[in-house]
């Protein structure tokens, strides 16, 4: 998930930090130091993360749009000027716009706000924003909660005591609350110095920027992988104790399904699955991705030449047009597949389904999927020309059957006209005529709409009188019979009024009078 670093460049950030002896530091230097550390960490361990840099005072500016080029971000850090007062709300509005323009409203983003805890004065100050929070209209809505899934990390270039001496901490806590509790405030432990800033940013890195390592397993075939972006815990909207679900670090393949069968399923999130080489201590040696660094290069070279299960799996998934179903946790599954970025580049991807026993209705319950060898005969057919999927729902949806709805007059008129059209083509359309008639009859009985039955009976009788001389004699018989039956149904006492009763065509035999036929 992309990161926006929001850096306070108001004058208060230039306040000096008292350090004995050595050269004078300002708070902004501490901030830059911490961010450098963050960027360096990302450049080595989290290099696919997109990061943008925003600076703000009373105005805000997008210094670096979303990029994976950490050198550019680093450079921007050293080119920051000092401006006037802190005006947090407008900066947060800016973040909303930047993120939504780039990523829309569905992709989770992390906002790292770096400030000194001086929240501005007068209009535009955080205190003012919070005080007027309840008097907002839709047009000047407060930017929190962010209109996208988010985490707001507030990195304070101040220690707790300093923040507590004013109401700064309270205001910042309000901010996290307003973001639905999504986020955290970090303060410097002890005196303001480079070392303590490092340890504060270290905590942020541990919390939000540690790569997710897992073992991909298919029986005895295994590979160490990094999953990027790291899968975030998912809160199931459960009745009891909504515990965030975290995915297993063992990603166990349970079987395979054709792409055509799984179709395009809804997913929570999509992730790259990158094979990695780990040394004994479990530290990442390299992702095998070529790099300028020479040491790394040789490590990558070696890693590249050791057969890896991910590559085998990816190749076969791609060739066969299949996906691997992978178990992520208790009643939680996902799928692995090959995704082509371009003609040359393709990748092993993992999509997470929504947790639950039956994430994709057309596959049925996941636990009920078993190996084809257990089936009496191969459900895919001997020539691979069949498929057990999709499963049909137990009850058809209303749009998959002929449900009668007369809420709009047009619905009723269409149904009546259908009967009429078929009535005029009797006896050829006898079957359809009675089918439509029975459908109307059933609905009218259920809705207690007996006047309709009488009305349609009258209509059929009139049709009978309007039959042209050329009409088949059977037409008149059937129309009279149908009208009579509808009237019986509308009196609602006889057995003919039973819901399950069907009007059947009158049995006629005109074989003897074939001269009548046209």
């Amino acid at each position, binding site marked *: 998930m992309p990161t926006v670093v929001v850096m306070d460049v108001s004058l208060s950030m230039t306040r000096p930090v008292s350090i004995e002896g050595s050269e004078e530091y300002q708070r902004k230097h501490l901030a830059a130091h911490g961010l450098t550390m963050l960027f360096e960490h990302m450049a080595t361990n989290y290099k696919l993360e997109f990061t943008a840099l925003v600076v703000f005072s009373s105005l805000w500016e997008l210094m670096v749009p979303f990029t994976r080029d950490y050198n550019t971000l680093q450079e921007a850090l050293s080119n920051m000027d000092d401006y006037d007062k802190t005006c947090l709300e407008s900066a947060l509005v800016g973040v909303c716009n930047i993120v939504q323009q780039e990523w829309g409203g569905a992709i989770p983003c992390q906002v790292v706000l770096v400030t000194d805890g001086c929240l501005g004065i007068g209009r535009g100050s955080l205190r003012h924003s919070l005080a007027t929070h309840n008097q907002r209209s839709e047009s000047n809505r407060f930017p929190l909660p962010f209109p996208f899934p988010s985490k707001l990390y507030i990195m304070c270039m101040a220690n707790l005591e300093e923040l507590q001496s004013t109401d700064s901490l309270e205001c910042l806590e309000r901010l996290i609350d307003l973001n639905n509790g999504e986020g955290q405030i970090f303060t410097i432990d002890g005196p303001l110095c480079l070392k303590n800033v490092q340890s504060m940013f270290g905590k942020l890195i541990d919390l939000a920027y540690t790569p997710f390592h897992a073992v991909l397993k298919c029986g005895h075939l295994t590979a160490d992988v990094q999953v990027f972006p790291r899968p975030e815990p998912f809160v199931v909207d459960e009745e009891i104790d909504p515990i965030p679900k975290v995915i297993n670090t063992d990603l166990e393949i*349970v079987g395979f399904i054709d792409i055509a069968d799984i179709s395009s399923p809804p997913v929570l999130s999509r992730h790259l699955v990158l094979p990695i080489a780990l040394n004994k201590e479990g530290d990442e040696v390299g992702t*095998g*991705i070529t790099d300028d660094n020479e040491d790394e290069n040789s490590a990558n070279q070696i890693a590249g030449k050791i057969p890896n299960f991910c590559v085998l799996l990816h190749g076969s998934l*791609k*060739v066969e047009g299949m996906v691997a179903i992978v178990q992520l946790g208790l009643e939680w599954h996902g799928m692995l597949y090959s995704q082509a970025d371009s003609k040359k580049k393709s990748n092993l991807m993992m999509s997470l389904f929504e947790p639950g026993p039956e994430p994709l209705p057309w596959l049925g319950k996941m636990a009920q999927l078993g190996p084809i060898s257990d089936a009496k005969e191969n459900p895919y057919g001997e020539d691979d020309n069949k498929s057990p999927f999709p499963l049909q729902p*137990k009850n058809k949806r209303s749009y998959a059957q002929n*449900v009668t709805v007369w809420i709009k007059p047009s619905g009723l008129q269409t149904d009546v006209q259908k009967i009429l059209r078929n009535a005029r083509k009797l006896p050829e359309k006898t079957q359809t005529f009675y089918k439509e008639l029975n459908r109307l009859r059933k609905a009218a009985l259920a809705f207690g709409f007996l006047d309709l039955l009488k*009305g349609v009976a009258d209509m059929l009788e009139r049709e009978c009188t309007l039959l042209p001389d050329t009409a088949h004699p059977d037409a008149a018989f059937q129309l009279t019979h149908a009208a009579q039956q509808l009237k019986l149904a509308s009196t609602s006492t006889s057995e003919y009024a039973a819901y399950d009763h069907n009007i059947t065509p009158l049995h006629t035999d005109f074989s003897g009078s074939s001269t009548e036929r046209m």
Partner: protein
Amino acid sequence: MKIFSESHKTVFVVDHCPYMAESCRQHVEFDMLVKNRTQGIIPLAPISKSLWTCSVESSMEYCRIMYDIFPFKKLVNFIVSDSGAHVLNSWTQEDQNLQELMAALAAVGPPNPRADPECCSILHGLVAAVETLCKITEYQHEARTLLMENAERVGNRGRIICITNAKSDSHVRMLEDCVQETIHEHNKLAANSDHLMQIQKCELVLIHTYPVGEDSLVSDRPKKELSPVLTSEVHSVRAGRHLATKLNILVQQHFDLASTTITNIPMKEEQHANTSANYDVELLHHKDAHVDFLKSGDTHLGGSNREGPFKETITLKWCTPRTNNIGRSVLLEQPRKSGSKVISHMLSSHGGEIFLHVLSSSRSILEDPPSISEGCGGRVTDYRITDFGEFMRENRLTPFLDPRYKIDGSLEIPLERAKDQLEKHTRYWPMIISQTTIFNMQAVVPLASVIVKESLTEEDVLNCQKTIYNLVDMERKNDPLPISTVGTRGKGPKRDEQYRIMWNELETLVRAHINNSEKHQRVLECLMACRSKPPEEEERKKRGRKREDKEDKSEKAMKDYEQEKSWQDSERLKGILEHGKEELAEAEIIKDSPDSPEPPNKKPLVEMDETPQVEKSKGPVSLLSLWCNRINTANSRKHQEFAGRLNSVNNRAELYQHLKEENGMETTENGKASRQ
């Protein structure tokens, strides 16, 4: 929406008293004049629905929408009320469909206008509604059983939608009081019962409906809390279409739905592709599908709000698929003020169910990822892609809907069976072609394909034995083996050495499965009896010392596949250990794997440029590369080996020198090759 929210249980209470037989006074023309008919026919007089018909029709529509979107876990109990309460269905899932309800309603029939109004009341129905809310649903029961001692934490909430014709506001208040009192009483009863649940929250939605043109005697009132358990709201609605619209709005509120109108749907896609005839369809779905519009504030409301001022729908345009290969899916385009086109949604059908997918129209955070060929294992070119494809097809999944039981009587979970099978099938599965002999031999297939099975038939055993005899025969005839010729011009080790490698590998495969059954054991016995093992003494003389150590190691490794670290691990370890060494170490790594057969005389990879086999494993195998591979394998068996190279197996010193010389070239050449 939580499972046991108010929406889990909905009770419809519809008034069946005599006044409900009154006309809604909204006429329906049903006898529409059709073209080319004889002039002068007077159409039949329009008819109108009764208050009852309007109520039933609208509530059925509510249920239809609910069942379509939530086929499970959202339940309806339908009650009609006159001189008593008639409960038309139960909470069980089987009762939850329109057909059941329609049949039950038909049995009730329309209200009798001549019945004595004094005996009839909606109160009977409301009391029954409270009673039914206390009844446990199968889902609640399941959740309670699962939670055991915490069973009381399963919620029991519900909603009563009552459609009636009330006399006044005080009449409405009387109904509310009655519900409140009944809840109070029944909660007391439920407290002392095992099969009843107390109502924690009840939402009463009172809908007063009256004929069009009359004045309402009841005023609207928004939701109000009457007690901690009961909230109530009053809607005063004219009958006819107004009532249907009201219930349509309510179902959207109650189940978090939103509306999308799809425009420009061509009539019969293909046949009339050139005609301009098209139509619109409105869909209801979970409102999450509009999350992007709602958050960005870009709500492009449907143009003409024919349905009234409060009906909001988002318009999306149907994009007729040009080709059919997308299957049963259609992309939907979002009209933007700027005129730019954005495909924002997709409709697709699975087994007769329609799904609306939200597509991401913004930048992807996964753009420009590193290619898999650049990562770990990306440079290896002889993966058994086709074999693993076959493996995947054998391990495809299929639904087992009927419960199956194990021998001990416990329920068998099909997915666990699938995992077991994967475990069995991968006990011995070399990933690259140059690491295996037996999987490159057609002659081994009959054995290899059945030995992984959980149990063998007599016929399977026989086939396995036949396979072994056949191999013995091949060895006797001194047939060549397809022993890793990848990247070599030479033939590799001597014939007897080749067979020894092959037998060892086969033994590893069979040993990995001997615990499956006694029949598997028999296959191993046959193998051990048949395979040739040259006397140890002779072997030792033949081989150099270093070689001998290695052999021991490999033989030991084969004894037990479980103990043996999966070869990738050992490889990787080696890779790391040798990290610091010179490049030449790389050639060693694959060779050194304990259980893989010697990739004999592995020549430096620079040679690969001259052999088309380098094509073999760049991702998908083309027909050409398959063919080339086949031809090359065949050819490599035919041509004569250089005498010098034949002896070079044990002559390590010489081989190393050779490697070193060409090493520099090798990396670059190879790098190029895999990047092609």
